[in-house]
């Protein structure tokens, strides 16, 4: 069966977002913008279920 590499690309994008958001979160903490810190932390938390969904879809449809 022909495999799709779209989920892989999406997951890589999610990981890139994770890195960006994490660095933003740490910087905002040291700049004492605590609201931005919490928002970035929640973004990071949301990205994990998103990644899991992308994985599930990618595995079921294409394998």
């Amino acid at each position, binding site marked *: 069966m022909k495999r799709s590499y779209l989920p892989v690309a999406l997951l890589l994008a999610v990981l890139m977002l994770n890195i960006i958001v994490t660095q933003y979160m740490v910087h905002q*903490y040291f700049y004492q913008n605590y609201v931005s810190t*919490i928002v970035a932390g929640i973004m990071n938390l949301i990205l994990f279920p*998103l990644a899991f969904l992308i994985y599930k879809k990618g595995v079921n449809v294409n394998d």
Partner: protein
Amino acid sequence: MTDKNNKIPFDEDNYTHNINRNNERKLDRRGFMKTLVGAAGVFAVSSLPWGAVAAKELVGLGDKKYPKQKIVDVKAIPVGDAVDFHFPGEHDSAILIRLSENKYVAYQNACTHLRCPVFWQKEEGDLLCPCHHGKFDVETGAPTAGPPRRPLPEIYLKVENDTVYAVGVKRYEA
């Protein structure tokens, strides 16, 4: 030599013939995606403590409460003079300086180099640590000369009814 292992079915006197290690470490597409999801999970978990400490700062648990402490009467300290006191504990020596009619500053007077007491030089207008000739700016507590690299911790003041009170210590910032 006998060819006992070539008989079919052969005698199972060894336990490794069915272990197939080919491609054992190959990372296929599915395994790679699993790794990426796991990495996202690690990021999510690692952001929890940052959120927790940020929330703590927002709620204000990080600010210590100090009891309001009387330092000196306004009448007893002329403009340009300094008075020593202890705040917040009895072993935390501090210095109060009256810069003008209504401007007071106070710092914990342990030099940030090796904790010698810092003295107010009225003529030169700066705070001097005599041990290694470190100097601090009297307006901000920032080091201006000598070995110290960090500012003196500022003490928050309040003037009420012609009396100067110490109400808090500025949080240390590296």
